[in-house]
């Protein structure tokens, strides 16, 4: 849970393979960004589904949206937080409708 423990992920993006990324995927699953894994996913590979999860996480938390495990994103991951899922929600901000 410290920044130091996550430096190996720094700037990892789609296609990267980093030991321990499967645990990071569990974190994203815990807060609603990844579906419950089947036996083949939650590997250490930064796949397309994980990229979508990272983008959704960055968007929801008001971070720069890069799709990478950049320093802002890792800082947020190691920050203490509320245990309520971020994504089992609807109606964020105001919806614009064309009339």
């Amino acid at each position, binding site marked *: *849970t410290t920044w130091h423990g996550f430096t190996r992920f720094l700037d990892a993006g789609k296609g990267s393979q980093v030991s321990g990324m499967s645990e990071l995927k569990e974190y994203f699953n815990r807060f609603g960004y990844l579906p419950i894994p089947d036996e083949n996913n939650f590997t250490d590979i930064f796949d397309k589904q994980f990229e979508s999860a990272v983008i959704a996480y960055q*968007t*929801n*938390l*008001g971070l720069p949206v890069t799709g990478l495990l950049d320093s802002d994103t890792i800082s*947020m991951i190691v*920050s*203490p*937080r*509320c*245990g*309520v899922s*971020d994504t*089992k*929600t*609807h*109606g*964020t*901000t105001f919806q614009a409708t064309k009339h």
Partner: protein
Amino acid sequence: FSYFYGKPRWGRQAPVMLTYAFSQNNMIDYISLNDIKKVFKRAFSRWAQVIPVSFKEIEDYPSADIRIGFYYRDHGDGQPFDGVLGVLAHAFSPENGRFHLDASETWALDFETVKSRVAVDLESVATHEIGHVLGLAHSSVKEAVMYPSLSPRSKKVDLKIDDVNGVQALYGSNPNFTFSSLLASENSFNKGS
């Protein structure tokens, strides 16, 4: 601001009054119960100032609308806590009322007296979780009380416009509330910063 799926809220007839109680068996012992009660009273009052909902503490835990306790690790609700830092607390959407804090944290009322680097402000977390109890989900506005993360040794207790807009869309506005009072509070906060 955002809501839980289905936009659940407490569907009582006006004037809405919700009761809360503290678990007798699941508390921390290094902060007096009296002090904990004062913190929660202040946290509830912040929300009560902006919506036509009042909160009353009662002794009878099982019958309270909102049931507050401190729990370690796996405590039976499918959302185990994880020790120091990580997840600090969680609360359930309306009209469930469960409000759980991680007993492993170093909870603090005052950072002058609690020097731990991992101390967490109880009032900030209480204010945030009450937002969930009322039906707000997480906000992407960093300054908002309903933003999901809180650094150790930091305090965020004043509702921001995003929090107020969200909760008032669920319950309406407290007739005594004015946005100018909130702006005055935010301006004074900014100057202080």
